[in-house]
Structure formats: C-alpha cells, structure tokens
C-alpha cells in the first residue's frame, strides 16, 4: 500500500492505482469524458486533468506514487477543463434537437457542470443576420431551447429558430419567460412547450415560471 494525499486527505491505495480510482476512494469525483473504465483508457480528452505534485496530468491514466499530493479541483484545473470542453464543442455539430441521445448526453451534462454556457446557434447559423426575436418583443422559444426544434426560421414568420438564445443569467430567463407569457401563449401552453423542448434549464426554472405566471415578477 502507498500513502497518498487527495486534497490533503490521506488515503492508502495499492501501488500502481490510477489517480482516478484513488480520488474515488477518497470520496471525490473528477469529471471524465473519454475514459470508460476497463474499455477505453487513452487519455485523449484531457477533461479529467488533476494536479499530482503540482504537475497537470490526466487522472484516468496516471498511476499514483508514494506521497503523491493530488489536487482534484482548483481554479487552474477548472479553467483547463473548461477550455478543453469548449474546444471539443467548437468542432461538435450541435444538433441536439435531432440527436438520438435526446438529452441523455454526457457532453451536455459536462457543459452544465463546468459552466460552459450555451453557444447561441445564431452565431453558427448561415443566416447570421437574424436579430433576436425576444429583443423585438416577439414571443419565441429561443432562450429555452438548447438547439432549436427543427422549427421554421423567423424569416418565414415563425416564432422559433431554436437559437439557444441569450442564456446569460437568471434575469434574462425570467425576462424571456415573461415576454412569452405576455404574448399569445397561455400558461399551460408555456409549460408544455418548455417541457417538450429539450432545454438547457436553469435549476429553478419551475420557480421562475411560477413567478412569471403569478405576476410576481
């Protein structure tokens, strides 16, 4: 058994244990993407980076050594993970609306966890000149959908392009919901739409909807 320190907690693990298993044993968690225990272990995605004795290494492939000091999370590592995830998303064809995973997606879960905000489709769309419908006061579901709904584009008079909208803060969400609610959609329709579209939901969306519908906002 070798003695190691995970976030300053002492743990004893068998020699040759992978850092990721040692972290797990210590009760911590490290985000992973390409690592599939026992199946794929090539350390390609570099999401699970941790610091071992100050050196940045992938937890899924690096064996522990005696007295290793492992840091699972700090601002540095969070930044590295976030940048790497953003790089991955930059080449990922984001078509969540037609994706077979229907939201059961590690990439999106990870985006939530690491705080990678939704990248508005508008910036990728070939019709880039579209301006935001919500800003014009037209009810649309852009802010609620993650990547559209295969709906028609606003150029054709349809309300939603699934632009993933301005998901910046809770205030914007509330404001968008309010705009929608003041439009021609009633509360039940709004709720069903929101639950129908696979959405990048803030945690307290339910509360927001309640607030908006009760005109408390």
């Amino acid at each position, binding site marked *: 058994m070798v003695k190691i320190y995970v976030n300053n907690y002492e743990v004893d693990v068998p020699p040759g244990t992978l850092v990721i298993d040692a972290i797990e044993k210590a009760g911590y968690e490290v985000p992973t993407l390409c690592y599939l225990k026992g199946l794929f272990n090539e350390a390609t995605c570099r999401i699970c980076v941790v610091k071992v004795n100050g050196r940045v290494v992938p937890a899924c492939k690096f064996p522990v050594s005696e007295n290793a000091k492992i840091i699972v999370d700090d601002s540095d590592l969070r930044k590295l993970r976030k940048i790497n995830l953003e790089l991955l998303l930059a*080449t990922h064809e984001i078509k969540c609306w037609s994706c077979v995973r229907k939201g059961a997606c590690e990439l999106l879960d990870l985006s939530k966890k690491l705080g990678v905000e939704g990248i508005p489709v508008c910036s990728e769309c070939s019709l880039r000149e579209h301006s935001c419908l919500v800003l014009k006061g037209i009810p649309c579901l852009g802010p609620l959908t993650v990547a559209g709904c295969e709906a028609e584009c606003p150029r054709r008079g349809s309300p939603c392009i699934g632009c993933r909208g301005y998901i910046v803060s809770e205030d914007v969400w509330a404001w968008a919901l309010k705009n929608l609610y003041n439009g021609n959609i009633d509360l039940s329709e709004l709720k069903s739409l929101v639950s129908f579209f696979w959405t990048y939901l803030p945690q307290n969306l339910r509360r927001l909807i309640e607030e908006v519908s009760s005109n408390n906002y």
Partner: protein
Amino acid sequence: MKVLTVDAGLQRADVLTVKVPLASCTLAAGASRVLESVKKTLEKLGLEATIKKVGCMGLCYLDPWIELEMRGAPPAIYANVKPEEVEKIVREYVKGNLSSALVIRGGTHDFKNVPTLDSLPEWKLQVRFVSRNCGLVDPESIEDYIRTGGYSGLKKALKLSREDVIEVVRKSGLRGRGGAGFPTWYKWRVAYEQKSDVKYVICNGDEGDPGAFMNRLLAESDPHRVLEGLIIAGYAIGASRGYIFVRAEKPLMAERLEIAASQARDYGFLGEKILGTDFSFDVEVYRSAGAFVCGEETALIAAIEGRSRPRQRPPYPATSGLWGKPTVINNVETLAHVATIFQVGLEEFTKYGTEKSKGTKMFCVTGSVKKTGVYEVPIGTKIKTLVYELAGGPPDGRAIKAVQIGGPSGGCIPADLLDLELDYETLQSYGAIMGSGGLVIIDDSNCMVDVAKYFTSFTLAESCGKCLPCRIGMKVISEVLEKITSGDASLEDLEVLKELGESIAKSSLCALGGTAPNPILSTLRYFRSEYEDHVIKKKCPAKVCSKLVRYEIDPSKCRGCTQCAKNCPANAISGSPGKTHVINYNRCIKCGQCLIACPFGAVTKV
C-alpha cells in the same frame, strides 16, 4: 579547432587525393556532378590520384566543396565548385598554385592571401567533439573510422562492468541532445535495473524540425560513431537488440547506417559474442515514413510497433517501452557523444560546457545569415557568438529581429536578448527550448505574426490528433492568427491566444502539444506591439501580411511604361502608354508583380 586529432597518415597521401563530400546536403548542391567532373579531369590529365568520398564538414555555405592534397603542398579547400571549374582547379593545384583556393587546411605555405582553415572564425571557434570526423573520413569505410580511434571506445567499455559504464556516463554529465536535456545515465540506470529477458536500445534519428539537420549530417558523415555509441548503450543496459530509427525521407542516412552495421558485423563489433565477451547485440535500421510526432519517444516506439501515436507516460520507456520491454531511446548526437567520450576520455568532454550541462552541442544555423551551417560549440556559448561570429551575421542591409530556437516546438528569442547563453535552462526560462539545436535566424523583413502562423501550420499538420488540446486547440489558434493577419481581430483575440496557448501547453498528452504553442507564446511575449499593430492599426509593420498591405503607384515617378500593367496577372492596373497608371484595388490580388516589374521605383508597398 581544438580537439581534432586525426591520424596524420590519413591526411597525407603520397599522390594527389581529391576529397569530394557526398552527403545529402552537398549532393543537393551538385556534388555528384562535381564528382563526375573530377573523374573526367583526372582521366584527361592522366594524373595518378585517389578520389576520396567523404562526409560533409558542416559548412553548408561552401557546398559543394572539394579538397585537394598532394605531397609537397598543403591541403586546400575550394568552395562552391562548379563542375566546369574542376579542371582549372586541379591543373593549378598540381602546379603548386593555390591562390584560387578558399582556405588551406594547414601547414606552411606561401599564399598569404589564402587564409588557413584554422584562422576562419567559423572553424576556429568551434569545438569539434562529435563532428571531429565529419568531412574527413569516408563514411562508408570502417577502416577510416578505426584509424581515427574508432571502436576503441567500445573496447574500453566492454572491459568495464555495466555499472561502471553507466557510472562513466553519469560522471560525464551528458544530457540528451534531442531536446529535453534529460540525463542520459539516468535512463540507462533505470533500464539496467529492470529485470527483463529482453531489452532494447533505440537511436532516435527522426529529426523533424524545420531548420535542423545535425543528426542527418552526423549519421551520414560518420555513421560508425553513432553505431558505436548505440552498441555501448546496448552493453550498458544489457540489451540484445538495437534499432536505429531513421526517416525514410533520409535514404542516404539509412543506407550509410546499414553499411556501417554490416561492416561492423564483419569486424565483430556486432553480432554474437562481441570481441570475445558474453555480450551479443545486433541492430536494425528502421525506416519510418516521416511524421514529426515520431520524434517523441513513445510515438517512436509505437511507430516501430506499427501505430505511431504517443501514449501517456508513465510508464516511461525505460521501464516499459518497445513491446512492453525496458527500452532506452537516445538521440543520434547523444550516442555519438557516448562513443567519443569513451574514445578520448571524460576530461576532454567535461572541460567544455557549463556547470549543469557539460560538453558540446551541434547547432544548425539557417535563415538570414551569411554562413549557414552546422557548428559544434560548447554548451553555454552565447547566441550572439554563434550567430554573428560563426555564422557571419545577417546579409548586408538586413538586421536580425529574432532567433527561433528549437524549431516549431521552440520559441523566438528577440535580438536584444542574443547575449543569452545556449543551455537548456536559460533557453527554457526565456520561452524557447534547446530542441535538437536548430536556430532559424529571422531578419527585419519578416512579420512575427506570420512566423507564428507558419509554425502553427506546421504543428497543426503534424499533430497526430490523439489528444484534444493539440488537435483542436492548435486549429483554433491558427484561425485566430489568420484573423489577426487579415486585420479582423480584436485585442480580446490576443488574450484568447495567450490563454489557449497556455492551456494547450499544460494539458496536452505529449511533448508535441506541450511545446506547440511556444512560438505563439514567445512572439506574443516579445513582439506584442507587432500583434497590436495588426489588431489596432490594421497594419503589418514588416509589410508581409498580404491582406494588410497595399501597392501604390507614385504619379510623380510613373512614366507610363506599361510594364506594371503587362505583368499584372489580375489585370488590375489600367493606364495607357505615357500616362500615369492606376491600380484598381477591387481586382488587385496583392501579388507584388508590379513592384518587381516597375523600372522606375514608382510602385511602393504601404
């Protein structure tokens, strides 16, 4: 020239000897045609002479050169020889007239206007330790090598125990010459201590940096030295098999190493029970289709196994390398150093270099200098000495702006920091790396953003694509650089470059990704104002980035000769003979043909 000790018998032939260098570099410069011409000339003149094929001595700006020597006259070197000049050269030399020679290798003579080789700074300031034989011996002759003390190192090593051999290397303080400067003995010790039935040693001759060719030169000019080093390494760790990993793009290097190996086999330096000891060892020259990443040791091992991608270390190759067996990988130059250390002794090696890094290192100086070449100098020599004194400084009218050290993995050192010493730690602290030792000299006609863009495109193309930061991150960096050179960038993009570059360097899997952002980060660090000019003023100060420059015709100088309009491939210039011409910027493709064509200097680049 301090260390060179060549057997006198080798230098003095009784009759005329013509040395013709045959290495890839001199062949490219036309040495094979010179050789043909030498053969014809000797036949025509009816001279009894030997033609000796030698390697390259590293003074590339002299290529192709020939050296003539004869009893009664000092050996003379003639540079930049054209095939048709050979006859005249030989005739004059035989008559004893050496006045047209470039340099005279040594001895007393009356030709005061011809300098001796030892008086040239590019020769005098060198310490030719591993390159001592380059350009002097026939690389395809083991006898030549043995005559210069070859394989005596192996004989000495085989008399020592394995621990003692490693101890000698430890005492020498030899560090890997491939780039990272890892202590050679340590790798050996770890591999030696592994209990395994099979162990391997690999000579890393992949050498892929643009502007670095010292390994090729060394292995082509003195292959036995590399081989001897490899055999000593094999003995030290108890390996039974060695590989020499050579790029298929360097066929001559592979061929010469193969010839060397077969000669060594004939002489009993390779094979079963070498020199009567229990040590059996053989080598194979492995040719790999070139990929820059194969210079990385885990990728190199994977390439021999059949799939060239790096893998995460540990385990380090010294514990689990080729086919999962303990493997030592050393650079060509490192192994040549090992052989030379055993031949001439530790003291000769350790008297050069710095406290932390002993010995000498071969550096390739290319780019904007008068005398491109490979120069072997002690580690710790100032960059300035190497660039200005040995390589002769920039061409007239130009000034040096930066020196890119270590190829695409290295960084740019600005001209005002050329006082720095060339050693592993100093260079690293200034954002460059020693790398294999290639120095690309960049003069003031170059745009540093463009330089960064070039190196990014190189690493981007050479990235194996396994790990994410290198594969996608470098792509994003190249896009941002493209944006900057097109004048579409904002100051935030510079922050993106920095942040992304640092992130790639930290989280990449292998050394390729770990060092790939170095050119960007170092140019950003030392030439930020140049980046800002592109971003804020939308101007390229060096007038290189074509999207940010514009060609203008000065009406006061234009005489209406129509040359510019005739040469314009885009028909962008209008004007009739005798009248001032005008460039139509909507059609102009900024090729610069008008600037070249104008006989009156009326076209300017702004």
